[in-house]
């Protein structure tokens, strides 16, 4: 019975693949662009036009040195997992009669194209530089696969067939298929897709991706020298139900709406999106463009649109910084559109309004409070240095601050001050009801700025008491010129005052940008290290891991942060079209 099943799989594979031979591409012959072999229905396409740049970059001594500087990565290089990989590489070197760097250059130094089609069909086309080496490698892998299949008592899972002159192979009973056409390797998870590629090759690319207008436009909009290009056919993706979920989430989540509503709107009328990755020194940059248009001035979502001159401000720089975000959002305009943007009245929103009503003494929030603010908003998150005479909490939370730009500080500062003190009073009152210690308000001065600070009493505390999480907080409200700083700690407030007082107002503006996020590797790693134990414990119960395994996974997370930790994301509006620029500075890159 078992044998019968195997045979039927084998036979079906043969029927899929075998057909009279035709249109054989011989070795050494110039092949048409891979995109001519990819069907037009490709929803997402990734291309590496000249992988030798990537390969050389990754193989360079410079890159290796930079990587090795990082502690987490070093740990991985010394781990048994890595040793295992090295073992496999040595074996392959021996079988192919070449050293691995050379093999990588020859095999992956050409063009690589990957396409995702509807129903999770994938086609990958690798243009190698050596048909000979490719066929040798295939031979080695084929032998290995046959061995394994034999061992598993399932020899028929390695099979081949011929269609239009191409030989299709499978090593796993048809789950994945591949074909070698000269120096080109085609991989897919669907035999049908391989057959389509053969059909396209036969007809000379008619009905292929290369002829799709959106694809051609996207190519023109991207920088020509990109290391990696991506293309997303939004028309096809939109049919997927996932975008629906974001919209639904936005309806009950004002913060999400504030962040993404405009861009979603722009993407909703886009037909394609494209991205290019470039590498410059140790910096990896991702540039995303789409053909959608931002909605006009009176559209409900048009609250984040900088003009050509305006835009958000440069991020604030402070010591121990972890994350900084700078936004351009017209809050009053945004809040006026709440019935459209987030029509469901959640408990949280009503509570927020009730509180704002109390804090701002009955003033209308979107008409009498928010219009006092300019659209430039900045957020800073930084690690803290604790003062033993205040408290050193067992759970270290980073400090956080919001910086608004006021239109008329004389009018707004007293309003904000009153609201702030009421908020602290309310917090105190609520904590008091739960018999928890409250905050004591005080006024202080730093560099000529008078500000309100609130601190927990430290009278009669045991060292154990001082570990309480509340000692992460020492909130401050500080007006600094036209800026209003709300900070969770005094230390961060002072650092921001230092920064703002020397900020060059003119150079600070980033025209066209409406969102800029920056993360700082060193700070993030330090924070992760401080909370390492908590992360490990969370991993243990969330993933059901032993401590050892949880530690290993946490180390991997740290390694990832070590690589990607220095990140900059910019969203901008250029000629009314949405763009994004993302840049990662790899470890060792000078800022």
């Amino acid at each position, binding site marked *: 019975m078992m044998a019968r*099943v195997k045979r039927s799989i084998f036979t079906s594979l043969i029927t899929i693949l075998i057909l009279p031979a035709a249109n054989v591409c011989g070795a050494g012959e110039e092949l048409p662009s891979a995109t001519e072999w990819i069907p037009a229905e490709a929803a997402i396409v990734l291309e590496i036009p000249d992988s030798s740049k990537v390969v050389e970059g990754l193989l360079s001594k410079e890159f290796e040195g930079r990587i090795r500087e990082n502690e987490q990565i070093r740990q991985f290089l010394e781990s048994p997992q890595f040793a295992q990989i090295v073992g496999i590489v040595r074996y392959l070197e021996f079988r192919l009669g070449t050293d691995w760097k050379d093999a990588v250059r020859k095999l992956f130094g050409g063009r690589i194209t990957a396409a995702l089609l509807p129903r999770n069909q994938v086609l990958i086309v690798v243009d190698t530089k050596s048909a000979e080496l490719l066929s040798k490698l295939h031979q080695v892998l084929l032998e290995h696969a046959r061995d394994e299949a034999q061992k598993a008592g399932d020899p028929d899972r390695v099979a081949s067939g011929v269609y239009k002159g191409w030989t299709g192979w499978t090593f796993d009973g048809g789950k994945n298929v591949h074909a070698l056409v000269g120096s080109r390797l085609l991989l897919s998870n669907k035999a049908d897709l391989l057959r389509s590629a053969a059909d396209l090759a036969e007809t000379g690319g008619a009905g292929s991706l290369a002829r799709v207008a959106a694809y051609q436009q996207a190519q023109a909009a991207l920088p020509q020298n990109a290391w990696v290009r991506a293309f997303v056919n939004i028309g096809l993706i939109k049919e997927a139900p996932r975008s629906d979920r974001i919209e639904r989430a936005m309806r009950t989540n004002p913060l999400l709406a504030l962040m993404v509503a405009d861009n979603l709107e722009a993407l909703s009328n886009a037909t394609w999106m494209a991205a290019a990755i470039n590498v410059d020194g140790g910096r990896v940059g991702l540039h995303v463009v789409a053909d959608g248009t931002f909605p006009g001035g009176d559209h409900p979502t048009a609250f984040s649109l900088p003009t050509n001159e305006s835009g958000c401000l440069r991020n604030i720089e402070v010591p121990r910084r972890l994350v900084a975000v700078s936004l351009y959002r017209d809050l009053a305009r945004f809040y006026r559109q709440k019935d459209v943007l987030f029509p469901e009245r959640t408990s949280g929103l009503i509570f927020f309004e009730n509180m704002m009503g109390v804090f701002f003494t009955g003033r209308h929030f979107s008409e009498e409070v928010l219009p006092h603010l300019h659209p430039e908003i900045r957020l800073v998150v930084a690690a803290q240095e604790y003062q033993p005479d205040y408290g050193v909490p067992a759970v270290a939370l980073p400090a956080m601050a919001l910086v608004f730009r006021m239109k008329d500080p004389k009018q707004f500062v007293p309003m904000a001050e009153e609201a702030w003190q009421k908020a602290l009073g309310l917090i105190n009152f609520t904590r008091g009801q739960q018999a928890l210690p409250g905050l004591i308000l005080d006024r202080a001065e730093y560099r000529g700025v008078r500000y309100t600070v609130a601190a927990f009493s430290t009278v009669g505390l045991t060292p154990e008491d001082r570990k309480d999480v509340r000692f992460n907080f020492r909130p401050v409200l500080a007006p600094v010129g036209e800026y209003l700083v709300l900070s969770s700690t005094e230390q961060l407030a002072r650092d921001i005052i230092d920064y703002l007082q020397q900020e060059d107002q003119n150079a600070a503006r980033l025209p066209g940008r409406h969102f800029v996020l920056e993360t700082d590797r060193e700070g993030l790693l330090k924070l992760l290290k401080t909370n390492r134990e908590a992360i490990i*414990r*969370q991993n*243990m*119960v*969330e*993933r*059901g891991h032993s401590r050892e395994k949880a530690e290993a996974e946490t180390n991997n997370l740290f390694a990832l942060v070590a690589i990607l930790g220095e990140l900059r994301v910019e969203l901008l509006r250029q000629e009314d079209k949405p763009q994004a620029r993302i840049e990662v500075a790899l470890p060792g890159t000078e800022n």
Partner: protein
Amino acid sequence: MTLSANDQVDASLGQLRVDPVWAWEPFVPTPNDPWDLRKVGHLFRRAAFAGSWPQLQQALEEGPEKTVSRLTTPPPKLAQFHQQFDPLLREAARGQGQGGIRAWWLRRMVESPFPLEEKLTLFWHGHFAISADRLRDPTLFVDYLLQLRESCLSSWQNVLATVCGHPALLLSAGSPQHRKAQPSLKWARIFAAQVGLAPDGLPATELQEIARAWTGWFVVNNRLRFIASEHDPRPKKILGRQGDFGIPELVAVISAHPASQEFVVRKLFRYFISEEHPPSGELLSPLVDCLAQGESLLGVVRVILRSNIFYSTLAYRSRVKSPVESVVGLARMLGQIVPTARLGEDLVDLGQDLCNPPTFDGWPEGRAWINHLSFLRRKQVLRQLAVSSALDPWAVAQKHGYGSINKLPDFLSQLIYQGDLPSTTMGTLQQKWNSLSASRPFQPADGAKVFLAELVQQPEFELA
């Protein structure tokens, strides 16, 4: 097994009549009634959530006497286990609140070298039904749980004193006011019910006296305080004893009273022996005597786990597992750790929020656990667990020499059911396995998970 429904049990009046002397004598295996895998599986289900394959094998070899000793004696590494896990539970309470508590308590149950202790903590927690929601401060709840664990195997008086001496009890009761001028009768009723004095059977004056004994006890700032000026010092007459009783005296009087002792023993009978066969007072009396003579709860449990009646058909598969017993049991059978954070939330949906027993009666019991939707959800949770990446039944089978396509089905069904699945069910499952293992591509590790999921979805799995 010696006992059959027809000869020694007379349940026609809804109460069980068995010879009490025979019932509590230690079980001695005979050729007709041998020490076999079934009895071993039964013992581990009741005393330790479940046993892993090596545990079952070791028990089979060592016999009942030694195995019960092993299961009821704190192992040497217990102290180290507590040292490691107690701070984790406290940290979790502080950092993640109730979700963290559920996750780490479950983790304890899965990993503890002394599972009986966790089972009895759960037993008493279910009994006193303290609700973390009503405590507000999760660290206070953990404090209560840890104190309960420390006393759960000692004496009834100790357990009662621990609970009554902790602010959690009154906070969880909604902080009834125990003022001198207005003793809380409602609280007295609840309290009387929780210590086994059927409030409807008590004279009204007795309830009034209990309420007066509680006067003066308040919770202030999460601490239990005795405010003398609010205490009613007049003598009280409770259960035939007289004096100016406060809480410590009340605890002593009640825990020494036979009615309350029988109540505890009856509860243990339901927990360890059967929910389906209500025992007579006569049957329970030897155990009540044990308790009265100062035997610890652990001692009484040991008598139960050794007894003839425990290994009789009367006890066999005659309890419905609580959701916790069901999922922790699965993990312990395979001897593998499962992701308990998600599981803790799933258990809330299944009606067993570890932090919040719903009423003063604790969680539902027996058949009340199962209605059609709760059954469905429970099986979904078990299936998810079975096919998750946390459990690897194939690796377990391989480790014990059953890692082949032919041996796996029988191994897993012996591990889980010890041969109790009907032959028709086993036949169907075997067929499913045959076609599964013949399909291509076939990964034995994945296939074993699917087979495990098939096994745990059987209704029989819910019988403890």
